[in-house]
């Protein structure tokens, strides 16, 4: 079956829209097809999770090539171990767990990255005191069109300790629930909330003073908006 044919078949038989995330039933149907030998459906199965997998890899790697390598390894491992997937969780949860394991395994091989991480403080949110109170009310959504700003966000994320970054990516980038994040990371809900809290506040402190490396930021006034108000 051609790739286009696969996409059409997936949409027709399982009701997946381009934007929508596959439902559990959709995933089960795809997994059944793959395990019966129609392995070309694997691409449709993993597509909704590509961004999370890539984000997890990219924010934990030294460069984009390493991230690409991690993503590829994680997806191929998922493909080769698909028959071992027990359906106790969503496929995405299982896939992200494989990715996290891949990231951790590579990190163990290369301890140098850890030296640059911030936030190796005891896991306790009671001792947090903001280091500055810079007013950062304005948010420039259009600014994200600029590559240097996206790079700055990536650098900031990569600079915080792994345990905070993992919780942040799952909860705030991928929009998983606290419970699902806890399941993936194998920690309690309380620990997820604590790590998330620290991650958000550390990133605020890194980014609030300005996104340019040498000082001032400068969001342009016409880019300003506050989407939650």
């Amino acid at each position: 079956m051609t790739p286009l044919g696969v996409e059409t078949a997936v949409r027709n038989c399982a009701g997946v829209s381009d934007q929508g995330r596959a439902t559990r039933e959709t995933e089960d149907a795809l997994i059944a097809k793959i395990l019966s030998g129609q392995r070309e459906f694997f691409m449709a199965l993993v597509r909704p999770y590509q961004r999370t997998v890539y984000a997890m890899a990219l924010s934990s790697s030294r460069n984009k090539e390493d991230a690409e390598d991690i993503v590829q390894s994680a997806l191929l491992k998922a493909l080769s171990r698909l028959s071992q997937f027990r359906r106790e969780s969503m496929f995405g949860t299982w896939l992200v767990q494989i990715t996290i394991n891949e990231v951790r395994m590579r990190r163990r091989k290369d301890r140098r990255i850890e030296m640059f991480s911030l936030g190796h403080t005891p896991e306790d949110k009671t001792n947090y005191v903001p280091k500055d109170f810079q007013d950062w009310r304005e948010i420039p959504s259009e600014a994200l069109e600029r590559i240097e700003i996206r790079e700055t966000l990536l650098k900031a994320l990569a600079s915080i300790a792994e345990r905070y970054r993992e919780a942040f990516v799952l909860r705030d980038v991928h929009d998983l629930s606290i419970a699902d994040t806890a399941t993936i990371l194998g920690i309690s809900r309380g620990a997820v909330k604590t790590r998330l809290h620290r991650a958000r506040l550390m990133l605020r402190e890194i980014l609030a003073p300005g996104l340019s490396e040498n000082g001032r930021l400068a969001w342009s006034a016409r880019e300003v908006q506050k989407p939650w108000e």
Partner: protein
Amino acid sequence: MGISCEEVWHDLSDYIDGELNSNQHALFDAHFAGCPHCRAVLDGARNVIHLYRDERVLAMPAAVEERLQETLREHTRSPRRSFLAWGLAAAAALPLAFGLFSILPRLKRRSSSPQRDVPPGTGLVAVSQDEKIKVFHIAGCAKLEGKPKFISVEEALHDGYTPCPYCIGKARQEKNG
């Protein structure tokens, strides 16, 4: 009675995630109304979430996605074709491999290059870790170049290795005396 800045910093994430009860939430709202510092921290934390949730941030570049799709396509081709190809190769190579094994002990004795020898008693063949051509050899084969690695015949066949023609010729000669 209001709440302190420290209490706000402690539970700020819970406030953002809607994890506080309505009374607590109201206390936070009242605090933010009168405390510009805590309001700045709240706005900053919300900005962070909003920015990173944007699809453009941490998005997979098109070139990376293309390469990934290509890799997945290679690995998800219909298994029937690859099984057939592997099966034919195995069918052709197995008699040769077993022929080689029948004279393996004699060849081992004649080997003059210890580092190329198959570990005794293991029933393994040697493949080169440096050569690009996928050929497997028996002990002492002069055609084996580079650093040898020892694997079973089954593994060698499964991984796409074929027997070394030189070894086959040698084996035939040995067999015929």
